[in-house]
């Protein structure tokens, strides 16, 4: 059994619970609800034990609880080796630890677990608020650690103050480590949970998907350009291509989605690049989307690791984008490229696919146009003219029935991008023109302060591409035919009153708030650029900027200098502080005397009384007897009698003795003795 001093007092317990709470709080939204309850119950039980109303659970009960929690975990998560179940397991382990929180060692284990749980928060989200929260959590856990040492340090101000001071003092070294510590790549592959909430453009386009996106002002992409910036009407950030239509939902289909056999060129150079140089060079920072789709202008190429190009001119990532991801892109607009070879039959078949029946009215209408002998472009312009004449752009379209294309084209005639793009592609396919729906983002807000283009979720857009013989894939945006301002100025001006109407805080209505939001985004961008995306490449750049040249000598100096400086500082500090209280003058003077005597050959023994010492001196070196006697006498009077004059006399005596080299004196007297 732990000894008495090892048992946890009340303050320590409360601190441990506080630390656990802080670590657990942001995870609660992700973890199954019962874990939160289990934790609260364990805390309650432990407090009851502290009050003496209950006992700590016995072995059988503990085993039962463990079995229950394991079963609970298995029920909540289908697999084990992913982040979420791991976090859950950690949270549960300190929850269970609460039931046997007895000694300081238990407390310590519990707090170490809390550190780990707090850290897993960052794996999910690396934004500034989370970083700040993580910092606070670390502060509290460290304070809890400090509070384990007695009741004085358990006082909130003292514990937090200590913790804050430690962290502040540790910060310089942390920054140094952050900059110089080498980053290795992932050591093994860690699967992550993909089932959790997904944002952004998705794998499929069903009616209503884009209305959801139009309500979110979350940033999706941040794009900074190296060189010219595309004009607003060219800012089509392609992410997905839908080729398969089942009458209601558009999907990528076989041969498009890389997961379903779509070809991806992972290595640069695998796919020949156009002869002429790229028109745009830019870096895209994409927010976590939990899907592998990346966004770029048409005919992109990227050298960033883990990024591949698809045959239909998009970029994909090898693994889903779980946290912000930055990639470099070069883009060649289609009009700058050579005449493409004709579409192969598989491609043609895929892009002409339609459900066997349904939407008869549209099919008949297109058939009529075809019978009049119109070509692909004429049919397209007929359709766009129809949109322009009759249709309304609205974010709140009426619900559509089973023949959604028919109802949209001939009855409701109200809708937004997905309706326009979907019906357009349907009609074009019905007319025998290969066509496909493209989804991604359109537009973006230019942030002048930091020189980047901010694309938000509500910029999500869908448009169409048709194949024209001899010209290749051409982008057609049916929405532009109805509402040109959607393409030119973005959703906000196109939707007018409807824009973000349901949001709790109509931020966009207040100029100040809009500006503030933009400022905040700029800070975020900075944060991302400097901290979150700091990788080995940036590390090399930074070191190069700091040192000029990465010769081993310089790196070693860079490392060694602070270490040496700090060590020297500590040494100096220990020398200065270690001396302790200044000893009284009498003692110091007497020490001088003792040292002098030691040089003369008589060392004072530890604990030897001055009188005894003087007697010994008189025995061994009679010639010093008088001097020693006088000094001892003066010392005793000064030290114990509080005699000021004696101190003066002692000083005088010693000055006299210091003035004369003692050894000569002794030698002389020894000669005299012979």
């Amino acid at each position, binding site marked *: 059994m732990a000894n008495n001093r090892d048992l946890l007092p009340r303050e320590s317990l409360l601190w441990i619970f506080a630390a656990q709470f802080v670590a657990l709080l942001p995870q609660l939204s992700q973890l199954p609800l019962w874990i939160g309850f289990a934790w609260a119950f364990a805390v309650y039980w432990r407090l009851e034990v502290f009050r003496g109303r209950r006992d700590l659970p016995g072995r059988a009960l503990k085993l039962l609880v463990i079995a229950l929690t394991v079963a609970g975990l298995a029920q909540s998560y289908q697999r084990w080796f992913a982040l979420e179940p791991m976090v859950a397991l950690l949270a549960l382990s300190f929850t269970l630890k609460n039931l046997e929180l007895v000694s300081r060692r238990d407390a310590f284990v519990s707090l170490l677990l809390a*550190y*780990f749980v707090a850290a897993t928060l960052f794996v999910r989200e690396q934004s500034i608020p989370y970083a700040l929260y993580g910092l606070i959590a670390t502060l509290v856990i460290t304070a809890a650690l400090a509070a384990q040492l007695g009741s004085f340090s358990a006082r909130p101000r003292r514990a937090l103050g200590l913790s804050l001071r430690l962290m502040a003092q*540790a910060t*310089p070294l942390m920054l140094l*480590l952050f900059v110089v510590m080498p980053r*290795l790549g992932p050591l093994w592959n860690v699967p992550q949970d993909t089932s959790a909430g997904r944002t952004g453009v998705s794998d499929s386009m069903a009616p209503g998907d884009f209305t959801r996106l139009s309500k979110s002002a979350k940033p999706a992409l941040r794009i900074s350009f190296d060189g010219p910036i595309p004009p607003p009407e060219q800012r089509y950030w392609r992410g997905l291509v839908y080729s398969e239509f089942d009458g209601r939902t558009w999907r990528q289909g076989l041969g498009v989605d890389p997961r379903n056999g779509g070809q991806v060129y992972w290595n640069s150079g695998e796919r020949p690049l156009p002869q002429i140089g790229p028109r745009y060079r830019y870096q895209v920072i994409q927010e976590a989307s939990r899907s592998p789709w990346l966004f770029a202008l048409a005919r992109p190429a990227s050298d960033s690791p883990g990024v591949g190009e698809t045959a239909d001119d998009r970029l994909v990532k090898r693994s889903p984008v779980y946290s912000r991801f930055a990639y470099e892109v070069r883009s060649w607009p289609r009009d700058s490229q050579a005449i493409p070879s004709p579409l192969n039959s598989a491609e043609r078949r895929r892009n002409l696919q339609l459900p066997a029946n349904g939407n008869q009215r549209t099919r008949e209408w297109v058939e009529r146009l075809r019978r009049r002998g119109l070509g692909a472009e004429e049919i397209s312009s007929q359709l766009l003219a129809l949109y322009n004449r009759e249709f309304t752009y609205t974010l709140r379209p009426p619900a559509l029935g089973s023949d959604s294309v028919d109802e949209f084209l001939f009855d409701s005639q109200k809708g937004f991008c997905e309706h326009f793009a979907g019906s357009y592609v349907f009609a074009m396919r019905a007319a025998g023109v290969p066509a496909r729906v493209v989804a991604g983002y359109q537009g973006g807000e230019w942030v002048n302060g930091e020189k980047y283009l901010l694309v938000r979720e509500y910029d999500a857009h869908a448009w169409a591409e048709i194949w024209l013989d001899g010209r290749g894939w051409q982008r057609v945006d049916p929405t532009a035919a109805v509402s040109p301002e959607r393409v030119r100025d973005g959703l906000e001006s196109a939707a007018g009153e409807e824009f973000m109407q349901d949001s709790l805080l109509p931020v966009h209505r207040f100029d100040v708030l809009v500006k503030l939001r933009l400022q905040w985004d700029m800070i975020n961008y900075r944060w991302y650029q400097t901290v979150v995306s700091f990788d080995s490449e940036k590390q090399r750049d930074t070191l190069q900027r700091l040192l000029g040249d990465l010769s081993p000598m310089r790196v070693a100096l860079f490392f060694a200098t602070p270490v040496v400086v700090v060590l020297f500082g*500590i040494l100096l500090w220990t020398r200065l502080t270690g001396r302790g209280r200044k000893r009284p003058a009498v003692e110091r003077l007497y020490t001088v005397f003792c040292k002098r005597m030691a040089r003369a050959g008589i060392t004072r023994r530890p604990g030897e009384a001055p009188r005894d010492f003087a007697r010994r001196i008189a025995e061994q070196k009679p010639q010093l007897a008088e001097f020693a006697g006088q000094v001892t006498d003066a010392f005793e009077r000064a030290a114990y009698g509080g005699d000021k004059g004696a101190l003066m006399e002692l000083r005088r005596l010693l000055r006299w003795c210091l003035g004369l080299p003692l050894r000569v004196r002794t030698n002389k007297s020894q000669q005299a003795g012979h």
Partner: protein
Amino acid sequence: MNRDFPRQASSTGSTDSKSSRNFFRGLGERWLSRRAPRSRDITLNHSRLFILPTRAGLGYLLVTALLWLLATNYENNLVFALTFLLISVFVILPVHTFANLSGLRLQLLGTEAAFAGDFAEAQINLSRTDKRQREWIQICWPPEEGAYVDLCEVASADFRIALPALQRGRIQAPRLRIESRFPLGLFRCWSRIDLDVEFLVYPRPLTAGPLPLGEALVEGTSGQVRRGGDDYASLKPYQPGDSLRHLAWKQYAAGRDLYSKEYESRTDTRLWLDWELLDGRDVETRLSNLCDWVLQAEKQGVAYGLRIPGTTLPPSLGTEHQQRVLSALALFPKWGG
């Protein structure tokens, strides 16, 4: 007083490994005694303090290693930052732990005598020489738990620490350990100091029956004598009223003055705790028995004297007398007799 009494029973290692370990221990002790000499007033400084991570500290390092793995695998810079922060805290901690002890002044206020088998206590004053608050300082003779002291709101504190006293005699206490794990418990800073603590340990009291009242063997001239016994003791000038039966006729016949013979009793009203009363037992048992009698006599208020080889203390009562008697018992030579 002789300081060269054997301290504790010296362990004579039989095996080689033990003797070599003792050799190194001896080497360490000698090194310590040079580096941190004996004194009744010690101020802790860098030359006396040692510092190493605790087991908890190693656990903490393990967690930072795991965090580093997490950060590396997820290529997560914030986890990296947290890892480096924790490592940096670990790096600066020794300085704090050291500062918690450095500059502390320890003074031996005094010691109290104890009986063998009991705990001997030393009173020590711990004070800080600067304004820094000190916490959670443990001072002990391992493996005893010793005392925990905080110097947070006060600048100086007196406390007692106990050492089990095993053998009688003048015991030089081993080095004290002063230790602190403040602030996070990840490092242990300690010093082994010799405060020149010396205990006087009385023999362990062992019951030897009731007080030997009336059994004192009378020898010599000290003490009050009960007259009228059988044993001839001495001559004294005749005084009127002396019994005629006791007149020393022989001496008178030889032409000297009239003397009267004095007889003394075998028993004495005053209590002599005598070595010889316990004949046949070994030295330590005799001392222990005497010790027990001393305590009994003092409790019962019977004046007692002590007579052991080399020392005779006349009967008396009172704390001071008791201390003198017990000291005499404590300091009785070990191998003498």
